[in-house]
């Protein structure tokens, strides 16, 4: 209902429904201890960001309203890990290298880019990738989705096969090279974007034909902005990214029907205020994480300007300063304020801003949750 801009009985609550509303394994360990569930083992559900696979009974206890559905890796492919003195490393299915510091490392971050040395668009076209539409990616997904839906009654979020097509483009090419391609070798940038879009289209067409009628939300994620503004200009975004988003989101929506809508949640960190109207235009239903600490991302103003057509999935508590460094009372005040800003009329799914990090005290997490319980009722 929230996504249809109606007021349900309470603001829906998300934890771990997507890979940008999750909780780091170390933060989750602390939370379990705090809740007196110390015996439960913590498994990693998402490797790059080291997110915990949150237990179903914890999700139930916290009254979480959404559940994630994931695709599998293609048959016959498993990542292999290697250790050197400083890092643990692996290469993902697209050929991108990742590494995590062995001493206190909290995440895997980019280490190498398979397109770094490519000099022509033909190199990109000829690069062999695993089939995004390999049916083994969906093995058991339908049964799992139906069972999860029956048991939890929650809305189901289906994650993409990779990061968003723009983010995947710069992971493959390297950030600096991809951005300079946009200016001095646009044919190269376009070839890379076409390649990553092909991955997305291939996967979504197969997945939605298979489970489109049992999932509610499709999640796509790119990062277009930093703390203070857009990384590329809105004009560059409109020229190279937006037309491809229009194609992708249009294709995703073609699997929806009047009695079974599919909502698109789109994640981008940072100050994206300038392109929100564009995102709405190409079919985005909800934005995440609503980074309130970035420039021009104040919740009251965003709700006033875009609340009629856009759902805010996130924005619950500033996680750069308050959820981690504030007192429980400050967390509570902040959550109350964000609920007051975003909840009226529906169109709000409460979640922390991005994944809950290891620097978040469990008492603060629970203060956030209690504030949602207290102020999140309609």
């Amino acid at each position, binding site marked *: 209902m929230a996504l249809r801009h109606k007021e349900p009985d309470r603001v829906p609550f998300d934890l771990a429904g997507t890979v940008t509303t999750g909780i780091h394994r170390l933060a989750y360990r602390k939370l379990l201890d705090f809740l007196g569930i110390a015996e439960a083992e913590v498994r990693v559900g998402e490797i790059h960001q080291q997110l915990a696979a949150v237990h179903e009974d914890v999700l139930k206890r916290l009254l979480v309203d959404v559940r994630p559905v994931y695709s599998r890796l293609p048959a016959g492919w498993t990542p292999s890990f290697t250790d050197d003195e400083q890092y643990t490393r692996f290469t993902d299915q697209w050929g991108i290298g990742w590494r995590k*510091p062995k001493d206190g490392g*909290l995440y895997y971050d980019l*280490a190498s880019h398979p397109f770094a040395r490519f000099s022509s668009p033909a190199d990109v076209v000829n690069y062999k990738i695993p089939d995004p539409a390999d049916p083994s990616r969906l093995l058991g997904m339908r049964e799992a989705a139906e069972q999860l839906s029956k048991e939890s009654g929650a809305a189901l979020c289906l994650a993409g096969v990779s990061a968003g097509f723009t983010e995947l483009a710069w992971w493959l090419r390297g950030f600096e090279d991809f951005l300079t391609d946009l200016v*001095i070798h646009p044919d190269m940038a376009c070839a890379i974007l076409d390649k990553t879009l092909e991955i997305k289209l291939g996967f979504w067409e197969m997945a939605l034909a298979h489970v489109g009628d049992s999932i509610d939300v499709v999640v796509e994620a790119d990062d277009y902005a930093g703390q203070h503004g857009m990384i590329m200009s809105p004009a560059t975004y409109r020229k190279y990214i937006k037309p491809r988003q229009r194609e992708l989101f249009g294709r995703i929506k073609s699997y929806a029907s009047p009695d079974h809508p599919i909502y698109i949640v789109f994640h981008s960190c940072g100050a994206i205020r300038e392109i929100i109207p564009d995102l709405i235009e190409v079919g985005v239903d909800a934005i995440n994480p609503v980074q309130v600490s970035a420039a021009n991302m104040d919740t009251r103003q965003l709700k006033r300007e875009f609340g009629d057509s856009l759902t805010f999935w996130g924005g619950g508590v500033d996680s750069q300063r308050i959820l981690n460094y504030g007192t429980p009372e400050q967390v509570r005040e902040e959550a109350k304020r964000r609920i007051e800003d975003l909840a009226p009329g529906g169109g709000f799914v409460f979640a922390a801003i991005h994944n809950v990090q290891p620097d978040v005290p469990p008492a603060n997490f629970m203060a956030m949750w209690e504030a949602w319980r207290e102020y999140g009722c309609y």
Partner: protein
Amino acid sequence: MGLIEELKQAILTGDLRRAPELTERALGDGMSPLAIMELACTPAMLEVGDKFKKGEIYVPEMLVSAMAVKAVLKALEPALQSAPALFAASIVLGTVKGDLHDIGKNLVGFMLEGAGVKVIDLEVDVSPGTFVDAVRTHKPNFLGMSALLTTTMPYMQETILLLKEAGLREDVRVIVGGAPVTEEYARQIGADLYAPDAARAQEMLRALIS
């Protein structure tokens, strides 16, 4: 248009073919590397910084100008043995321990190098001890630390404390930045300067040098 003006334009537009060509012509005309740096590179990169601050250009355009300056510096290399130092100041720069994000840190490095500050780049995942060793070895005017994550940001403070212990804190100005870092945080941990982006870092350091 004079040669220097043409070179400035080549940097501003990120013309990677023309920038080194024009540099070689300027050297051939008898200009010194230092003059080329001070008359073409620095003003061009200050203009890039200014346009970025005003929102006239974004990161991609800033990067191509930085690449053009790199091409100029490479073209200057053969002439450098007999020339005085190119840079007016130096900075030891890196992303703090546990943090592998280098986008912001690299942008700061590019903007500073183009504006006459020698960059000693320690790259990413730099421990407090490594920062302090580099300050001892290179004796830079500035130490620049970057962090993208709230979980790694505390290493900035650890580094500053270690600098104090090593008796080096007064020898270097510390500048910090990165998405979660604020002016207030910089003050709390005892840094000298906070820059919200690469253009502002360039502006602050240039003001201190001149």
